[in-house]
C-alpha cells in the first residue's frame, strides 16, 4: 500500500495517537499513522474540556491556531433532585489569564487540526484504514500490522496502540483483557446550537468566557454516573453517562436518561430554543488504576484510553492520552537513537517514565474510588442528593416553624434514611478511597 517499512506505526488519530505520531515525526523518525475514520476525529466523542498543560508540552503556541471554543472561567457542581438542585459555583476573574488553563473544544474539529500538525511534522497519515491485527515474527515480537486495504501489511520496529477504549486490536491480539461492563461507562451526548449572544447572556459571559456544569443525583436513577453541560462558542454540549453494568442491570435507555436530564428544571431553560445538530455515544474507561493493562511488550506500546488512562474523579482523559502518547514516543525516540532493539525489556522504560509523571501518580491515588462508587451507588447517586435538597428546602422555607425545630427535622431526616453509623461509614470510606 505505501512504503512497506517504518520506524514506528501508530494505530489511531485521537489525542494519544496524535501526540505520539507528532513527537516521533518531529524527532525525525519515519512514522506511519493509521486512522479508520474518514478524517481524524470523525469517530471520536468527548465532552469536551481541553486541559492546556498537556498540549502545551507538545505544541507550546497551540493557542495561535487551534480550534478552541471558550476558556473556562466558571465551574458549577450540581446535585440534582427531581425538582430542585443544590450546587456549588466557582467563578474567578483570574481564569481570564493570558494563557488559560482549560478550554471547551469540539473534538472532530480539534482532532482534524492536531492531525494536520502531525502531517506537517512529517508523518505519513492514512485515513479510512482499519488495522485488523498485529503481525508477529516467529518469536512473537510485533513487527507490523495488517490493515483492511489491499496488500495491507506494513512493517515497523515498533507499534504504538492508540486505538481508544474500544481497542479491538490489542484485545484480539491478547495484549489486554476484554473490557468488563463495570469498568466502562456509556455516555450519550448532544450538540445544541444557539446564537452566541444568547449563550453569553444566559450564562453571564463576555467574549470567549465559558462555563462548565457537572451534575449528579437523581437524573441517573440510582446508577453510577454523571451528567454535564459545557458552553461552546455557538453551541452547548450536553450529555450523561453511567456504567454499562448499571445500564444492563436497570435496563434503562441512555437517550431517555439524556431527555430526563435535558428536561430537568435546572437544565431546560439553559437549552431552550436550541437546534440539535448531533447525537453521539461513546464509552469511557472508568476502571481506574486497577484496570490498567500491561502497557508494553516486544515491539509494542499502549497509550491513552486503550491503556485505560482516564481519571474519572476529575473527568480527565484527553490530557492523560496526550501525555502517555508523548512519553511513549520519547521512549521510542531514545531507543532508536541508541540503536537499541524495541524489546520488552528496553520498552519498559516507558512505564518508568510514566511513573514520574502526574499520570500514574493520579491514577494510583484514586485506585479505590471505582469500587467505592460502584458499591455505594444507591446512597451516593440517589439518597444523598435527595436528602441534601430536602434539607436545603427545610432550611430556606419560611413557614412559621422555629429554627431549632428545622434543624432537628433535617438531622432526623438524614438519620431515618441512613443511620448515623451508615453516614459516618460512607464519609470514612470515601475519604479512604480518596487518599
Amino acid at each position, binding site marked *: 500500500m505505501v512504503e512497506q517499512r517504518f520506524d514506528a506505526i501508530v494505530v489511531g488519530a485521537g489525542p494519544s495517537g496524535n501526540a505520539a505520531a507528532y513527537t516521533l515525526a518531529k524527532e525525525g523518525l519515519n512514522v506511519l499513522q493509521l486512522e479508520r*475514520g474518514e478524517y481524524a476525529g*470523525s469517530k*471520536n466523542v468527548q465532552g469536551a474540556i481541553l486541559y492546556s498543560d498537556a498540549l502545551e508540552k507538545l505544541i507550546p503556541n497551540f493557542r495561535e491556531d487551534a480550534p478552541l471554543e471558550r476558556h473556562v472561567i466558571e465551574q458549577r457542581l450540581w446535585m440534582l433532585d427531581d425538582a430542585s438542585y443544590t450546587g456549588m459555583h466557582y467563578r474567578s476573574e483570574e481564569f481570564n489569564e493570558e494563557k488559560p488553563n482549560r478550554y471547551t473544544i469540539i*473534538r472532530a474539529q480539534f482532532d482534524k487540526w492536531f492531525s494536520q500538525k502531525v502531517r506537517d511534522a512529517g508523518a505519513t497519515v492514512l485515513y479510512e484504514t482499519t488495522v485488523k491485527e498485529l503481525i508477529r515474527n516467529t518469536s512473537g515480537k510485533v513487527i507490523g500490522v495488517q490493515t483492511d486495504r489491499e496488500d495491507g501489511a506494513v512493517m515497523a520496529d515498533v507499534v504504538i496502540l492508540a486505538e481508544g477504549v474500544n481497542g479491538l486490536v490489542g484485545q484480539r491480539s491478547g495484549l489486554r483483557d476484554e473490557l468488563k461492563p463495570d469498568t466502562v461507562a456509556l455516555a*450519550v451526548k448532544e450538540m445544541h446550537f444557539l446564537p452566541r449572544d444568547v449563550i453569553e447572556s444566559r450564562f453571564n459571559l463576555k467574549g470567549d468566557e465559558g462555563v462548565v456544569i457537572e451534575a449528579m443525583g437523581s437524573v441517573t436513577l440510582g446508577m453510577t454516573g454523571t451528567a454535564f453541560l459545557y458552553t461552546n462558542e455557538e453551541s452547548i454540549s450536553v450529555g450523561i453517562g453511567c456504567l454499562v453494568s448499571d445500564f444492563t442491570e436497570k435496563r434503562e435507555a441512555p437517550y431517555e436518561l439524556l*431527555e430526563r436530564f435535558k428536561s430537568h428544571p435546572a437544565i431546560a431553560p439553559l437549552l431552550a430554543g436550541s437546534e440539535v445538530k448531533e*447525537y453521539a455515544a*461513546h*464509552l469511557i474507561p472508568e476502571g481506574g488504576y486497577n484496570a490498567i493493562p500491561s502497557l508494553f511488550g516486544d515491539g509494542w506500546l499502549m497509550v491513552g484510553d486503550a491503556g485505560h488512562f482516564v481519571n474519572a474523579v476529575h473527568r480527565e482523559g484527553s490530557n492523560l492520552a496526550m501525555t502517555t502518547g508523548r512519553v511513549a514516543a520519547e521512549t521510542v525516540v531514545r531507543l532508536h537513537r541508541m540503536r537499541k532493539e524495541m524489546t520488552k525489556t528496553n520498552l519498559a522504560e516507558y512505564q518508568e517514565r510514566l511513573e514520574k509523571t502526574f499520570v500514574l501518580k493520579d491514577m494510583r491515588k484514586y485506585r479505590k474510588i471505582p469500587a467505592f462508587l460502584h458499591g455505594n451507588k444507591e446512597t451516593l447517586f440517589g439518597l444523598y442528593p435527595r436528602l441534601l435538597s430536602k434539607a436545603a428546602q427545610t432550611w430556606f422555607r419560611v413557614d412559621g416553624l422555629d429554627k431549632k425545630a428545622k434543624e432537628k427535622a433535617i438531622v432526623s431526616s438524614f438519620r431515618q434514611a441512613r443511620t448515623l453509623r451508615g453516614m459516618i461509614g460512607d464519609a470514612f470510606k470515601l475519604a479512604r478511597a480518596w487518599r
Partner: protein
Amino acid sequence: MSTETDAVKVEEKLYYNRYVVDAGRPHVKIRPHEVPSQALLALTKICPAGCYALNDKGQVEVTPDGCMECGTCRIVCADTHDIEWNYPRGGFGVLFKFG
C-alpha cells in the same frame, strides 16, 4: 419509570447524524438463536442507537445502520458470545461532525 420521556424516538436523534453505510456488509451480527439470552434482551433497551429489537417470534434482531460504534453491545455480550462485532471497513460507518 419515566413515562413522560418514553415517547423519545431515537430514530429522530440518529437523523441528525451522518453515516456512510457499507451496504450488504453489516459490522454487527447476532448469532441465530431460539430464545434470546438476558444479555441480548438488555440490548433492546440499552443500545444508544436503538439498533436491537425483538421480532414477532421473540428473537432479537439487529439493524446496525444507525450504530455509533460505541462497543457497548460487544462488551455486554462478551461472555455469552451472542454477537459478532467488528469495526466497519475504513471510511464507513458514523461520521461525527462535532463528536
